[in-house]
């Protein structure tokens, strides 16, 4: 076995603004054999991206490579001069960045950027490079391979950009490709398509790769060998199969456990009195952005005819991919965005569209927790002021009583009392999200709108926040509207689930009902797209609906066809594209927006499973292994 990459005792040091130096990569040694893919796994701050970048002799500003050696194909990378390093970058080693949307220069065409490394290193003529790029676009299953190069980055979707970034890395036929979290920013249904095309390209070209990720399930599909990192040191290094089935290191085991969420001890929905009015009733909601047109609809309609009922003490999970309108729904309920049509009723009373016109009591009862605690918390206020302000505003609490209540809130979210004097910038991501939650709890609400509250967190931290949410709900009799793009998260804490697609409710039902076939074709795609923690899952998967093609966004707003038509594996031509589907009640108790009959859906989904050669109960990742 010949080694292409050999890293020995690599050390990288970060220098803070005050001049203090902290090691962020400590004595790392590993090797990558030719034609194999090695994964670097870890949470944020584990040093995985820093290690990957140092393979190109590159350190981000504020960091420097302090010691060790990196040999790639016999070249000692760290001893090269700056211009020699530039000759290796993009030629021998190439890089696929986490966010392709940011890694593409908005001012240049895609083609000029894809072939740039071939031009810089004078590998071929421009015409040959462009021909080769088109070939790569085709291999990566991009729509319109001839035309996509002439476009600008903002004109193509995120999933396509990520594949274009792969083409950009492969154009120079490098010896080593570094994949830095290339699918993290994508929706699950898109991720699956991108992973599939990466995998086939890696296999066809016998590429040697270093794959950086925080997601064990994704890595299990692509890597031959996994290195688990924590705080810049290697915790465990073994073949993929062994890590997944026989992890030795306790930290690896905790990562595996967090990647595989089990439902926390779930109290059955608090028994609701039959006579008690619903907590929240949303009816025929229409909302969007931009000035209203002559038909009363906003310029961009984001939510269309969405309705649901939330009983006291129950939770509703809202899922869907980015742009489906789930955050807009939370903003409408909170009064941040007045709806263009429909009503929101809270405890039987119709709420005013804008928060400014709601009573203080209504405002207090409904609180919202935003995804990014970083931007939701004022960085110039200490925690006790962040929490004290709503206490004074809603309850008129002041002085010693306020201090006591702040301490109680911190206690509720399981933070130590001394946090009260800290500023948000001094807290970790998980701590910030807890403060963010405590701020909502300060109002003593009946309903909390959680907008992707765990999406920006590492898996282990996110699991702890979910546990906290479940506990708070039991103690304080709260209801949540829990918005997420992650079906497994929603299923661990919600009683009811609503699936949104392109601003329409395509399926809604109880958590249990959402686990049994048949599902709405989009829900089915979502379920089958969640990567599973076993090797070979991706290979065994049948054809999925895939991501949206070019220009399909315009189709979404049309009222005369099913919004999911262009991606649906079960569509009926000349029916689904000419009529909006009816709402159909299935025997298991869910409502779906679909033209297909129940029997037909069962048959079609069983067929999809059969071609996938995967177990039929695959719709239950998590449970099936418990």
């Amino acid at each position: 076995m010949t080694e292409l990459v050999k890293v020995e005792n690599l050390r990288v040091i970060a220098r803070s603004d005050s001049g203090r130096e902290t090691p962020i990569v400590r004595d790392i040694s590993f090797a990558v054999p030719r034609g194999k893919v090695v994964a670097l796994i870890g949470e944020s701050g584990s040093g995985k991206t820093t290690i990957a970048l140092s393979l190109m002799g590159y350190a981000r500003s504020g960091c420097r490579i302090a010691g060790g050696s990196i040999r790639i194909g016999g070249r000692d990378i760290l001893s090269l001069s700056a211009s020699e390093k530039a000759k290796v970058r993009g030629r021998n080693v190439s890089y696929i960045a986490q966010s392709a949307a940011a890694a593409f220069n908005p001012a240049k065409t895609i083609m000029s950027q894809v072939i740039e490394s071939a031009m810089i290193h004078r590998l071929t003529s421009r015409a040959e490079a462009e021909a080769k790029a088109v070939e790569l676009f085709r291999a990566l299953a991009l729509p319109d391979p001839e035309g996509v190069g002439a476009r600008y980055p903002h004109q193509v979707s995120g999933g396509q950009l990520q594949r274009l970034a792969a083409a950009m890395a492969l154009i120079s036929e490098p010896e080593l490709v570094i994949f830095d979290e290339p699918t993290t920013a994508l929706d699950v249904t898109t991720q699956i398509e991108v992973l599939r095309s990466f995998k086939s390209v890696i296999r066809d070209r016998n590429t040697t790769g270093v794959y950086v990720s925080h997601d064990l399930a994704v890595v299990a599909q692509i890597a031959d060998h996994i290195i688990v990192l924590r705080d810049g040191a290697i915790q465990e290094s073994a073949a993929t199969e062994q890590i997944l089935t026989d992890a030795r290191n306790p930290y690896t085991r905790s990562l595996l456990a967090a990647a595989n969420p089990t439902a926390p001890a779930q109290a059955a929905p608090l028994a609701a009195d039959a006579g008690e009015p619903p907590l929240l009733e949303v009816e025929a909601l229409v909302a969007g952005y931009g000035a209203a047109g002559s038909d009363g609809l906003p310029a961009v309609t984001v939510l269309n005819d969405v309705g649901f009922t939330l009983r006291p003490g129950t939770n509703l999970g809202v899922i869907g991919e980015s742009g489906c309108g789930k955050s807009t729904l939370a903003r409408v309920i909170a009064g941040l965005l007045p709806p263009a049509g429909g009503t929101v009723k809270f405890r039987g009373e119709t709420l005013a569209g804008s928060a400014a016109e709601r009573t203080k009591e209504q405002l207090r009862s409904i609180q919202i927790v935003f995804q990014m605690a970083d931007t939701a918390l004022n960085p110039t206020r200490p925690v006790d002021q962040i929490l004290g302000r709503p206490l004074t505003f809603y309850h008129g609490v002041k002085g010693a009583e306020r201090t006591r209540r702040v301490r109680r809130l911190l206690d509720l979210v399981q933070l130590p009392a001394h946090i009260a004097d800290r500023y948000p910038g001094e807290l970790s991501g998980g701590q910030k999200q807890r403060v963010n939650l405590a701020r909502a709890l300060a109002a003593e609400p009946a309903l909390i709108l959680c907008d992707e509250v765990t999406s920006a967190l590492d898996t282990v931290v996110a699991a702890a926040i979910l546990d906290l949410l479940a506990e708070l709900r039991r103690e304080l009799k709260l209801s949540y509207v829990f918005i997420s793009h992650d079906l497994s998260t929603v299923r661990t804490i919600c009683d009811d689930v609503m699936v949104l697609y392109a601003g329409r409710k395509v399926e809604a039902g109880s958590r249990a009902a959402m686990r049994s076939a048949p599902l709405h074709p989009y829900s089915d795609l979502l379920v089958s797209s969640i990567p599973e923690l076993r090797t070979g899952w991706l290979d065994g998967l049948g054809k999925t609906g895939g991501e949206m093609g070019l220009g399909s966004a315009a189709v979404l707003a049309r009222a005369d066809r099913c919004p999911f038509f262009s991606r649906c594996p079960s569509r009926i031509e000349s029916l689904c594209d000419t009529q909006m589907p009816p709402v159909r009640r299935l025997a298991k108790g869910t409502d779906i927006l679909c033209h297909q009959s129940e029997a037909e859906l069962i048959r079609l989904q069983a067929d999809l499973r059969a071609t996938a050669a995967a177990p039929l109960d695959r719709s239950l990742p998590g449970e099936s292994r418990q």
Partner: protein
Amino acid sequence: MNNTMSRLIAARLGVMLLTLLIVSLAVFVATEMLPGDVAEIVLGQSATPEAVAGLREAMNLDRPAPVRYLLWLGGLLTGDPGVSLVNNIPVATLIGGRLGNSLLLAGVTAAFSVPIALTLGITAAMWRGRLYDRIVSFVTICVVSVPEFMVATLAVMIFAVQLRWLPALSFANDVQSLGELLRVFAMPVISLSFVISAQMIRMTRAAVIDTLQSPYVEMAVLKGAGQTRAVLAHALPNAIGPIANAVALSLSYLLGGVIIVETIFNYPGIAKLMVDGVATRDMPLIQTCAMIFCFSYLVLVTTADICAIVSNPRLRHK
């Protein structure tokens, strides 16, 4: 050029015209509020009330303010800004030659300072933190802190009085050749360039550094691009908007704010004309000069905005 862009540009031009109208109203009201009666000033202390009243009527001063505003605005639009109250010469004639002089000085200064400032700003950003960058940053800070009258006076003392290389006074009228032009303009242009370059250098450096930190520039470096390519091909096209704004704001100073330099070099420009107008309460002259300054300022800022719109690929390629 697509629809969105044409619409945005048309909207910018519309805003510019509206601003100009509001400014004209503000200028008119402000000059109305200046104390003193022009007729009395013109005729002197010994004037009889009848003479003053006659002159007021002849000057339209007895008509209500809104009517005078509309008369004045109509005159401006048709190219007739009125007659100087002080010496009965049409304002257009008074301003005509002076405006040409001012535009010439501004043009020469811009042609000289913009390329130098942009080059310094971009190169300082490229070698950020190195000795070169520190020297450029230090010198621009020094230059921006020294008042222009000091730079101008020092220049006169050294180059005109001591060395006798350059003329101390600048009369643009007697320029016959290019060499003479350079000699005449050298000192005012250098003094003005000192003032306006510092801001352009600092803003250009900041704008380029900002884009240099973006992931797509890091990606270019990881593709093997050298420093020059990363800056010129990747960072610069995305920094055009802020740079155009910095340039426009700096250049806008060249028309209205050059009074000190015009005074020291006795340069017959429009700023000096306006100050003289204020001293003699010559309303039509003041109003017209103020409108010219506002107009040129708006033209520059709007041009910068249009540059930013046109350089944005999201708007250019819908």
